[in-house]
């Protein structure tokens, strides 16, 4: 998404050379807005989230029970303990994380190797418990040296994955329209979860009786 903003910035810059006067002011303002969006996206990826420690070969799995057609965005950032400086520093090259996502039928829907920092996105096609597993994959065995890896993890589900700044810019919404849009998305998500709950209860009864 930041890439799209950068591309638009380049296009705007090219066009602003040809136009003059007050129209140029508008173009500059738009350029500034786009710069802001790009900058804030970069900032967003560094905002600290919940973190935990894992060992070298340890596999950490999280379960997310979600309805179908729900998007999940996971951001993670790793830090390795530096014995000399006695603090956690951003993980060095050669240290990657292997992310595996399984759907409720134990089918793998995402299986990828990311770097020391990464972002994974997937959309559920069946409602139920999805399992997100992370484990470190280091090419240099001496990196860990018996220490722990600190993993910052941030998982956004459903309505929280919407980027309202982007939606506002794309659909040209006023502030009030954006707020109402957010409320609509929230209600949609609540309704989806409620339907999922109703279906899962029915399924349990069917299993028991049939």
């Amino acid at each position, binding site marked *: 998404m930041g890439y799209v903003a950068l591309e638009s910035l380049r296009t705007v810059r090219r066009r602003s050379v040809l136009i003059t006067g007050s129209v140029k002011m508008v173009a500059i303002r738009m350029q500034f807005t786009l710069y802001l969006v790009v900058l*804030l996206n970069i900032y967003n990826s560094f905002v600290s*989230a919940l973190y935990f420690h894992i060992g070298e070969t340890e596999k950490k799995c999280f379960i*997310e029970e979600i309805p179908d057609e729900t998007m999940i965005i996971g951001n993670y950032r790793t830090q390795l303990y530096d014995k000399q400086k006695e603090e956690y520093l951003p993980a060095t090259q050669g240290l990657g994380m292997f992310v595996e996502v399984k759907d409720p039928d134990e089918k793998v829907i995402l299986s990828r190797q990311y770097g020391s920092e990464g972002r994974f996105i997937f959309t559920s096609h069946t409602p139920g418990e999805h399992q997100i597993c992370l484990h470190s994959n280091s090419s240099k065995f001496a990196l860990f040296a018996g220490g722990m890896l600190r993993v910052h*993890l941030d*998982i956004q589900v459903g309505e929280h994955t919407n980027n309202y700044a982007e939606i506002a810019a794309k659909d040209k919404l006023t502030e009030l329209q*954006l*707020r109402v849009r*957010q*409320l609509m998305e929230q209600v949609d998500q609540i309704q989806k979860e409620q339907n999922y*709950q109703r279906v899962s209860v029915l399924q349990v009864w069917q299993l028991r009786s049939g």
Partner: protein
Amino acid sequence: MRHPCLLILAVYIAFINATELTFELPDNEKQCFYEDLEQGVKFDIDFQVIAGGNYDVDCFVTDPVNNMLYQERKKQYDSFSHTTTMKGVYKVCFSNEFSTFSHKTVYLDFRTGEDARLLPDMNGATALTQMESACLSIHEILKVVSDSQTWYRLREAQDRLRAIILFVVCIGQVLMLKSFFNDKKASVATST
């Protein structure tokens, strides 16, 4: 849209972090989650044991200077709210060390951050219009609805299981009692 920059900035500044996770806690193990928070930030922790053993887990929360903010043993579910008094790393730990053979599956909802507020105008704080205030209130209420829905969905799943176990045990006890009387009848019949 006269101030698109302000709008975009406002959307980002009103940043509320919420992490919902369900994880497995093997027997004899402890799992801790940490979060770096500023001073004066309100955070809420909701947890529930959704599977395993007696559906209980030890939980404790400590502040940056290791003061115990919350400590409970063998709890099935609970909610804890606190406003931070100092900046630093706050820790939430779940322990299954009292159990020797049952894995527990724990659901955790860690919500931090202040209420969504608009960035004040350059001239000073401008009040929200009635429509904007209404939208903000509805937004907050919907957040509560969503969280409550998840909470009660998990409670319901457990209570349903308990109801079934209760029913089965009940029938079992009735049948067992019946069998005692059947034996008595047989012995009475043979003695006469």
